[in-house]
Structure formats: structure tokens, C-alpha cells
């Protein structure tokens, strides 16, 4: 067996471990840190401190390495196995190795919702995944990657974890590297930073309300009775009046639902753009984006932004910054307004039509369809199907405290569809009658999980147990790059006072704040794993849940 040894490049605290597979002629280079650093990380994890960027990097790398070592041990024991079931995509170009880790299913995505694209040093690592014979192209790719790491390591001031050294490569993958502020409310440093930012933008800070259940103490919890407008001046000068109106409508729940919120947001932005005038010595493409930032912070304070709103904002910001500087102001403004109109038309209205067309194929006569809550898209589909003379009946499942199912029920019955109404506690009693479940989604995450109204995951779970097909309907503009496997990490806490109900003049939970051991939790969203979802109907077609990252990649390439 030939052994090749490669002189490791001079890199301070990183040690190269040269492993040689006993049965194949390939050499794998795995970078590990010294054992001392590992202890640091475990210690800080045990202490519960927030891991710094470097430590997270190291942790991820170590996990990968351990997994690989385990795999190699398994390999050694099963010498007959040539191929492994591990499905890692061979990197087509060294550049694309950055994207390959993000397609890895589980390892890097555990409780940290940051997509695992960062472990740069292990870019040669996907290749040592036990492929029997490496083609010349793959070897070349490995060598190129190795050269790049060496080059980067030679840069001055490169730290052991090498985050800064990968700056040129990170431009290709503009992914969030920091935890968003709204999931770190229990960290006083982050809260202070947010307060300072809001002060700079002249937006009042909304204070949290009531006792928060400890598992969710990292999220904001606001009271509807303390609106943000209390601290604003009445003819609002800092914030455009249509944005103030929008914020009020969000926080009072008058505009609720992912699609409605996005449309209202874009409508308000149209007003803002119409009333905007470029100050002298400024460019519209840069100044308008800066003008929009405080408005977005304000709206975020009123109610946390949804994934669809986030995508819409990204789109607008991109359109604004793409306006050429020699464009006149009027022209630029009309261009932006038409862009917004086109976005709404394409992504929301036409997408709904396309989804209805696909979904109606799935509805056959005699179906009993179960829906949950009030999803504008699902209601649309059912109304269209009814108009195309499909014979079906609907079971509307509802849950407290929002009781949105009542509104869905009203809209369906108004069209003449025969409906049954139950609460979610009766779900397992009613499921034997159901032939299909249609669910709406608030967002579709990059790992295939469906984020939707709280209770959806239970519906999907019980439906799976009864072998009832679950179909999720979602437009592509709601797909987001976030990765989440549980409902704790990132969620929204609604006003806990909504859980109080008055029956016969008595409100039992009226003085819940006085009871020190009582906390009221009013969650808004939950995530459903892709195993419980049979089909996702989007405007691009009917896809399985696991194809969401493909759609995201295609979208990114388009843009």
C-alpha cells in the first residue's frame, strides 16, 4: 500500500491529520484543532454561555470530524461494502463546495438555525466520504481546494478557526452568520444593542409584557394594550403615516395572514415611494434604502416580520439598489411602483391561480377535505374547486385562542360549500371520515420543514397515523433560507391575555400575573417535519418536501 505524505502548510494552531485508507489509494486530509480547544468548547457549552463565532465553527468541524471517524471505523469493519449509503454530492467545482455542506441533511443544522455553510476548512472534507475510486476531476478539485486553504492560511492575521480567511469565498454565499436579534431577548447585550439601534433611528422601543415561560424567554412578548403609537408623536413625522397605520393594523390583528401582510406591506411601500423626494447630493438608490430601514424596524417592533415579508423586502431593496444613477427621479419611482405591482401580481395572485389549478387535480368527487384555521390560499383553492363543480365537503378544524376557523367557515359556507366545524381536540374522532388534508403554510424552511400556525404539526401527525394524505399549499415566495427543526428556537409569542376567556361574567385567569408560578404561553407558529407531509403544491408544480432546497437554489441562480 502506497503511502503518500503531504507536508502540511504552516498554520499556527491547526493540526493536520493525515489519514490513509487501507484499501484505497487516496489520502484524506482532515483538519482538527488541538484537544485543548475541544475542552474549551464543551466547558462553555456546559456553562450555557453563548458560543462565539469561532467556537461554533470549531464545534461544527469537530462534529463532522467525529462523524467521519465513526463512518471510517464502520467502513473498516465492513470491507465488502464498496458503496455507502451516504449521499453526499460530489463537488462539481471547488467553489461549489461551499454549497455542498448546506445540502447536508442533519449534522450542522442542529439547534443553531444558522445554515451550515461556514465550515470552510473542511471543504475538502466532503470528498473523503468513502467513495471507492476517485476520478481525476475530483482529485483535481481536492488539490485546488487544498491550495486555496493554504493561500488563505498564509494571509496575515488569520485566526485558528480561519473565519476571516474565508472572506473571499463567503461572498459567494451571502448567508446569515449571526443569530437574529429577535431570538436573543434574554441576552442583555443584544437587547442593549437593539435599543441603541432603535434610538438612532428614532423609533420607540416596545417593552415586553408579563411573565414569560422559561423555555421561551428568548423571544419577545408584547401586550396589545400597549401599542407602539403611545410613544410616537401624533402627526407622525419620523415614520410615514401609512407605515404607522400598517404597524397598528399588524399589532391589532386587523391584517393577519402571510399573504395579506405582504400585500399590505407592499401597498404601504408604494405610498412611501410616491411621497419620497431625493434630498440634494444623495442618490435615490442608496438613500431610499436607508429611508426604509427605520420603517422596517418599526414594523418589526409592532409585530415580528414574517418570512414572506422578509422576502418581499429583500426584493424591493434589490430593485432599489439596481436603479442606475443616471435615472431621473420620476422615472425611477414609476419603475419601482411597476416592479412592486408586478411582484404582487406574479408571486401572489398568479401563484394562487397556478396552485389552484394543480390542487384541483388532486380533489376528486366525494372527497372529504380537512382544513385547519384560515389560510387564504386553501380557501381560494376550495372555492375554485367548488366553482369547477367538484363534489366535496369540508371539515374545518379550529383552535383557541385565535379561532380563525370561524372566518374560514364563513367564507366557505358563503360560497355554498357544505362544511363541518370541530375544534382541534376532536381531531382523532373526525379523521376516520377524512380523505385528504389541505394545509396552508406561513413559510417553508430550507430543510423541508413547514412552519405554519400552531396546531398544524399535530394535524399532520394524526393524519399520518390515520394514513390520510397531507398536502401543503405554499407559494414560492414564502420559501426561506432558515433552517429549524423545532418550534422553540424561533417563534412568535402573542399577547398572553388573549388566553383569558370570560364565561357567564367570570374570567378565571383575570389575575394570572399575581400567581407567581403561573405563566401563560400563546404560541403562534410551529414546525412540521417533512415526514408528515406528502406533497407540497407550489406555483412551480407539485414537489416533495425535500425538494425545497432545490427550489431555493434555482431561485437564487435566477436572481
Amino acid at each position, binding site marked *: 500500500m502506497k503511502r503518500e505524505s503531504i507536508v502540511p502548510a504552516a498554520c499556527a494552531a491547526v493540526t493536520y491529520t493525515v489519514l490513509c485508507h487501507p484499501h484505497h489509494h487516496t489520502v484524506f486530509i482532515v483538519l482538527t484543532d488541538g484537544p485543548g480547544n475541544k475542552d474549551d468548547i464543551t466547558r462553555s457549552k456546559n456553562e450555557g454561555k453563548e458560543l462565539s463565532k469561532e467556537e461554533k465553527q470549531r464545534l461544527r468541524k469537530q462534529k463532522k470530524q467525529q462523524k467521519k471517524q465513526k463512518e471510517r471505523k464502520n467502513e473498516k469493519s465492513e470491507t465488502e461494502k464498496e458503496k455507502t449509503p451516504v449521499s453526499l454530492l460530489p463537488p462539481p467545482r471547488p467553489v461549489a463546495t461551499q454549497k455542498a455542506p448546506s445540502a447536508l441533511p442533519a449534522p450542522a443544522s442542529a439547534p443553531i438555525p444558522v445554515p451550515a455553510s461556514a465550515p470552510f476548512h473542511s471543504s475538502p472534507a466532503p470528498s473523503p466520504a468513502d467513495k471507492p475510486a476517485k476520478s481525476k476531476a475530483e482529485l483535481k478539485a481536492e488539490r485546488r481546494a487544498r491550495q486555496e486553504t493554504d493561500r488563505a492560511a498564509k494571509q496575515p492575521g488569520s485566526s485558528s478557526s480561519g473565519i476571516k480567511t474565508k472572506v473571499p469565498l463567503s461572498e459567494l454565499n451571502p448567508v446569515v452568520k449571526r443569530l437574529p436579534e429577535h431570538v436573543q431577548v434574554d441576552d442583555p447585550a443584544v437587547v442593549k444593542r437593539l435599543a441603541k439601534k432603535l434610538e438612532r433611528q428614532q423609533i420607540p422601543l416596545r417593552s415586553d409584557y408579563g411573565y414569560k415561560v422559561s423555555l421561551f424567554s428568548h423571544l419577545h412578548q408584547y401586550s396589545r394594550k400597549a*401599542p407602539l*403609537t*403611545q410613544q*410616537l*408623536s*401624533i*402627526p*407622525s*413625522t419620523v415614520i410615514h*403615516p401609512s407605515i*404607522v*397605520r400598517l404597524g*397598528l*393594523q399588524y399589532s*391589532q*390583528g*386587523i*391584517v*393577519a*395572514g402571510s*399573504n*395579506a401582510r405582504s*400585500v*399590505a406591506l*407592499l*401597498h404601504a411601500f*408604494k*405610498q412611501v415611494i*410616491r411621497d419620497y423626494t431625493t434630498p440634494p447630493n444623495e442618490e435615490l438608490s442608496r438613500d431610499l434604502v436607508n429611508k426604509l430601514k427605520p420603517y422596517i424596524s418599526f414594523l418589526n417592533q409592532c409585530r415580528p416580520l414574517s418570512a414572506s415579508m422578509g422576502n418581499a423586502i429583500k426584493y424591493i431593496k434589490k430593485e432599489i439598489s439596481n436603479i442606475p444613477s443616471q435615472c431621473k427621479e420620476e422615472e425611477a419611482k414609476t419603475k419601482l411602483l411597476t416592479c412592486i*405591482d408586478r411582484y*404582487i401580481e406574479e408571486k*401572489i*395572485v398568479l401563484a394562487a391561480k397556478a396552485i389552484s389549478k394543480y390542487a384541483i387535480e388532486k380533489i376528486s368527487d366525494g372527497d372529504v377535505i380537512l382544513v385547519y*384555521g*384560515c389560510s*387564504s390560499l386553501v380557501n381560494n383553492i376550495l372555492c375554485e374547486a367548488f366553482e369547477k363543480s367538484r363534489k366535496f365537503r369540508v371539515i374545518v378544524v379550529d383552535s383557541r385562542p385565535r379561532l*380563525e376557523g*370561524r*372566518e*374560514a367557515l*364563513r367564507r366557505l*359556507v*358563503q360560497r355554498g360549500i357544505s362544511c363541518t366545524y370541530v375544534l382541534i381536540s376532536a381531531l382523532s374522532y373526525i379523521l376516520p371520515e377524512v380523505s385528504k388534508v389541505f394545509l396552508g403554510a406561513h413559510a417553508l424552511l430550507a430543510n423541508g420543514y413547514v412552519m405554519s400556525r400552531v396546531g398544524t404539526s399535530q394535524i399532520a401527525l394524526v393524519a399520518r397515523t390515520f394514513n390520510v394524505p397531507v398536502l401543503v399549499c405554499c407559494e414560492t415566495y414564502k420559501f426561506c433560507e432558515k433552517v429549524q427543526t423545532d418550534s422553540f428556537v424561533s417563534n412568535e409569542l402573542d399577547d398572553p391575555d388573549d388566553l383569558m376567556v370570560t364565561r357567564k361574567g367570570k374570567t378565571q385567569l383575570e389575575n394570572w400575573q399575581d400567581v407567581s408560578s403561573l405563566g401563560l404561553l400563546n404560541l403562534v407558529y410551529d414546525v412540521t417535519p417533512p415526514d408528515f407531509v406528502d406533497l407540497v403544491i407550489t406555483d412551480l408544480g407539485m414537489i416533495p418536501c425535500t425538494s425545497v432546497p432545490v427550489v431555493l437554489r434555482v431561485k437564487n441562480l435566477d436572481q
Partner: protein
Amino acid sequence: MELQAVLMAAGGGSRMMDLTYNTPKPLLPVGNKPLIWYPLNLLERVGFEEVIVITTKEVQKMISTDPKVKLDVKMKLDLVCIQEDADMGTADALRHIQQKVKTDVLVVSCDLITDAALHEVVDLFRAHNATLSMLMSKAHEFTETVPGQKGKKKTGEQRDFVGVDDTGKRLLFMANEADLDEGVVIRKSIMRKHPRMHIKTGLVDAHLYCLKKSVVDFLADNKSISSIRGELVPYLVRKQFSKSTNSPKVIDETHQNLKKNDSNISSRDEELLHLTQERSCWNDHRGDMSDAYHGGRLRCYVHIMDEGICYRVNTLAAYIEANRLAPKLFDEPAVHPSAVVSERCLIGADSIIGASCQISDKTSIKRSTIGVSTTVREKVKVTNSIIMHGVTIEEGCNIQGSVICSNAVIGRGADIKYCLVGSAQRIEPDGENWDYWV
């Protein structure tokens, strides 16, 4: 710009002529500040930077010349004068300034003293895209005895019937007792849409309205409406539920005409708003098959204050009550620093002494307001009274529960109980005056 503030200061004070025959109502001193200061302070605190003040020439002259009338506000005041004898109602005044009105307006009356949170009223106006949003308060009984009125009052103070829906915010019905013949008549269409309605009578209308710009333009076309409170508000409340009629000058048409003017922009926006409402899973009522707001475009909202100060100073009783409570609204010291107060006098904690006063020895002042430049000589007892500016009170007087207007002179040893002494009057020394007006 979102809202423009309009302050109506041209009212005559017809229900307290004895106080206002000499001093115009906006400049009556309450807690030693002119009455108009209170709404201006409210607007300034909330964040307005300019106000359109509709007033008479007399008031304008006094504001600019009289040193006693210091307004102390940092806002820009745009004074618009109207003729005193033109007998203009509030709606007429609004029509008069139609050219200056560029956005939605917030109309305030000069006699409003309140510490209400204005954002509640304006939030209703913004969130529901309402045509009208107003402020009301639970009425408090006036506890002070009013000079010159024998026995309990309850003269024909006409009651207002206000109907609100279950949430207490949407205004469904508004009528004054004077307009009703035998009973309260409520249309079936209202009952069908809002089966549960609460009718309240003990409410004080604060005369603070948020109106859409289209309402001001509608007023310009309909010259028959002359009072906001008496005619415009009941009209708008009724119009919420009527189907579009054949009358040409209907407010819905004004809405649409305006929209046609900026045609392309607004029709697209209307579509988007409609799409938003269609996709949103919210409804303001439940139990019937209709969409949010029953598909109506005109909506009127009211915010009813439970607690807090809210007074309209348009009667003598209200004036006295306001003087009692005014010090709570601002935190200036009770005794003005420039007043000369001798050591041996007893000044109660809830009294206010104005600037440049001279209070001599052995006087006792309890629960009273002493105006600017007033002279109070020795051994005077003042209880529960309001003394305006420039009054001279000679020795040994005993004043109880009275209102002494400006520049009056009270002779020595006079005993005044529950009287109203008019401007520049003289009370003879050693007179005993009980319960009447001078």
C-alpha cells in the same frame, strides 16, 4: 403630513354670559391660565407643531397685545379670524378654512380641558381607516355649589343618546333628546348588522374629532350643515348604514370623485387594499355572512374614557369644577414666585396664587384661585372661590364659594357667599351678599 390640528376658539360662551360678557370665552382664566391654553398644551404635548386657530378679531387682538394673556406655546399658531356677528357654526368655520386643509384634520374646541391619551382616538382613526373618530367621557357630577343658582339644577340639559357596538368602539347611533319626538328610533338595518348595541346617556362629548379630508370637502359642497356636533356627526353616523341614495351630494360620491382625480394611482391602490382585506383572516364581527365592516366604506368610531379628566368649560358649574382640577394638569408651583405673600397668612395646599399678587397678613385662602395682580388686604377669608385678575379685596372681607371677575373691587368687611361678581363691579363695604349675581 398626517393630521392637521384645528382649534375652534370663536365660540361665544352662550351658557355663561355673566362671565363672558366682558372677557371672551377662550381667554377666561382657569387656574390662572387662559382657557385656550389647555387644548393648545394638549396638542403640543402630543407632538403637533402647528395649529390653525379659528377665532374672533377681539381674541386675536387680546392675544397679541395683552400681557396678561401669555400663551406660552412653542407651536406655530395660524390665527384665522371670522366675524363675531356672522353666527358661524363650527362646520361653517371648517368650510371657511377649506383651502388650508391639506390632509385629515383633528378638530378641538377651545373649552376642552382633558388629560386623555389622544393616541387612542387617533389609533382608531388610523387602524380602521375611519371617516370620523371622536372622544367621549363618562360625565361626572359637579359637586361644587354654583353661585346664583338656587336648588338642584337639571334644567333642560338635553341628553345625548349614544349607541356603540359590543366592542365599545364603533359608533352606531347618535341622537340628541331634542331631535327625538317620542322615543329612540333605531333602524332595522342597524339591528340586523349589529344585534348587540349598548346605548349610553351619561356621556360628555369632548368635541374632539378626527375627520377625513373628504369630509371637509363634502362640507364645502353641502352648505346646509352648520354645526359639527349637532348636524355633521349624526349625519355621518346615519350614513354608515344607508344604502347609496339618489341625492347628488352624498359623501360616498365625494369619496369616489376624489379617487377619480388621481385615477390610476388610486384604483390600483384600492385593488391592493381590497386584496389585503380579502386575504386577511380578520373580521370585526361574527355571526353573519358578511365581510369585515359589512362591506361599508364609511365608519365612525368613538373612544370612551373611563377615568381621567375631561371637561368642557361651557357652563358656570363646569368652570368652577375646572378651576378646582386645573392645577393637576400642569406642575407649576401653586404660589407664583412673583407674588408677594406675607408670612402670617394661611394658604391652603390646593390654592393657586397668580403672579404679582399681594397677599397681606392674617388672610386665609383655602381651595381658591387668586388671579394675576390681585390685591388681598388683611384679615380676609377666601374659601372655595375664584378671584380673577386685577381684583382688590379690602380688609376684613369674607368670601365664600364665589366667583369674582376681573378688576372688581370688594369693599371692606363685605360678606360674600355664593355670589358672582361681574367685571369691574364694586361691592359696598359691610354689605351682606348671599347667593346672587352682581
